């Protein structure tokens, strides 16, 4: 009885040692990471601005007032006003939720589809793998933002279509990362052991593979958020994304483009807003990646 007990304890310590490479260790390393901390705080700040900001602004983001157009920054209008006399600060605050919304949903949709395709590809291999990965190659054949431009352009400019376009644009990166991790995991003995015990494919995929590849998926999702926000603002800037008078930052830049030479504040602040949010996600993503791969950090 006594020895059985101590056996159980040893088993527990062993399990704890194993978890050091797993998700918990990832979180632990993440907490110590300064870059991730700064990025994470900034992201939380922007989320709070998106939720509560609109209640705190005194101006109406859509209120057109031509008598007050193109005012330079002042105590009344912190970031000045645009060509229609709308308060730019207010519009940027209201635009925060739009930006985060587009980024979040396009990445989530791209992630769900990409992760499923990646796991199936890595787990089953063979012809399924070839078909899925060739399909990803085809999506990746469209240089950079061009696929998103073509899709959003043809579907017509609207927030929903931007989300669809950016989501499709992010599928291959998830599929590739997840396929790689799945392949690495599949080689481990314990997956074989579970299979021998008679676990079904779905059970192995969702209970044993997916939880173990969460960390790279989260890292990828954070980095893709930065891309997604940049891409979406680019689409709006081209006039095939969010349409004016929506206070989306890219659309604001497009809207005020012809005035920026005399009134640079019209373009300066929406641009800085994009930089700040994208920077936050890049910092957080970098920190996450370091926490995921401690070898990189030691350098």
């Amino acid at each position, binding site marked *: 009885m006594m020895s059985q007990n101590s056996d159980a304890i040893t088993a527990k310590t062993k399990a704890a040692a194993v978890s050091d490479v797993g998700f918990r260790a990832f979180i632990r390393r993440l907490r110590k990471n300064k870059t991730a901390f700064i990025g994470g705080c900034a992201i939380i700040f922007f989320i709070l601005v998106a939720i509560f900001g609109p209640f705190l602004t005194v101006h109406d983001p859509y209120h057109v007032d031509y008598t007050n157009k193109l005012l330079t920054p002042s105590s009344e209008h912190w970031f000045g006003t645009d060509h229609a006399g709308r308060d730019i600060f207010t519009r940027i605050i209201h635009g925060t939720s739009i930006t985060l919304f587009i980024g979040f949903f396009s990445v989530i949709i791209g992630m769900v589809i990409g992760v499923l395709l990646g796991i199936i590809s890595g787990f089953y291999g063979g012809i399924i793998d070839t078909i899925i990965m060739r399909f990803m190659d085809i999506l990746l054949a469209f240089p950079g933002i061009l696929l998103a*431009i*073509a899709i959003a352009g043809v579907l*017509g400019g609207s927030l929903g279509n931007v989300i669809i376009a950016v989501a499709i644009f992010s599928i291959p990166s998830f599929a590739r990362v997840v396929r790689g991790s799945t392949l690495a995991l599949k080689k481990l003995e314990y997956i074989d052991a579970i299979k021998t015990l008679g676990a079904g494919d779905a059970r192995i995929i969702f209970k044993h593979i997916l939880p173990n590849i969460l960390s790279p998926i989260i890292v990828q999702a954070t980095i893709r958020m930065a891309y997604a926000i940049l891409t979406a603002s680019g689409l709006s800037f081209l*006039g095939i994304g969010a349409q004016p008078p929506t206070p989306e930052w890219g659309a604001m830049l497009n809207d005020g483009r012809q005035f920026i*030479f005399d009134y640079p504040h019209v373009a300066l602040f929406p641009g800085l807003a994009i930089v700040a949010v994208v920077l936050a996600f*890049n910092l957080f993503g970098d920190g996450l990646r370091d926490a995921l791969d401690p070898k990189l950090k030691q350098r």
Partner: protein
Amino acid sequence: MFQFIVRRLLQMIVVLFGVTILVFSLMHITPGDPARIIAGEGAPEHTIENIREKLGLNEPYHVQYFTFLSNILKGDLGNSIRNNIPVIEEIQTRFWTTVELATYSVMLAVFLGLLAGVIAAVRQYSWIDSGLMVLILFGLSMPNFWLGLMLIKYFAIEIPIFDPSGWGTWQQNVLPVVTLGTGGAAIIARMTRSSMLDVINQDYIRTARAKGVKERIVIYKHALKNALIPVVTVAGLEFGGFLGGAVLTETVFAVNGMGRLVINAIGSRDFPVVQGAVLVLATLFVIVNTLVDISYRYLNKRIDLE
């Protein structure tokens, strides 16, 4: 090696084939009847029927696709709906502008990226390193169209050194190239830094130093040469990013290239032009990617793909 090249070329053909399917589908993912959308609101029924007839939209999808594909293979991308000029002609005049813009930008990005990356790695943890890392992060986070607008404002209007728009003379080319090259420079700098750090910590570098080889030679001859391999791949992949990013840059600087062609065509719902331009850009990118892959393999014979 020969086998690898053949396999890679076959793969390229499969991907290009898939690209044609996707480009073909572009016309059909439009919500509603493409002919009606092309004709515009309130167009008379016979105009719509005319367009439908001209684009073969009455045929079943697979027939339409095979016509599309066989026309492409004959070098025929159809005619522009707006001005009835063959799409291929519209593209021909603009293709080289975009290629030039992307190529100069890649060159600038590689030059700046390597320089910044090597300096940051050699001076790891110094203030130069930290400063460069901050710059790199900004470069990665900045929308290039915004950078372009700001450059026009300050370097073409306030201090009129460069031209604010167009393409051809060096005064016109500098700002678009800087705009497009900056993001790529940041990516390459980051890659170079980490790749250099990997190499610098290797035994053979320590050996070279121990032998008394000059530091400059160690860095540039021994380390950089090996650190370049992953950088080449990134630069090649970035070429695609540049082709895509050119759309935004060309819009900001009113450069009459492929990107602007796509955007204008989207605006006027000229689907054959959109399809043709997207197809040409994707084909170019796929070919460049294949070449990069082959040269990567050649540069680094140690790696064995499968």
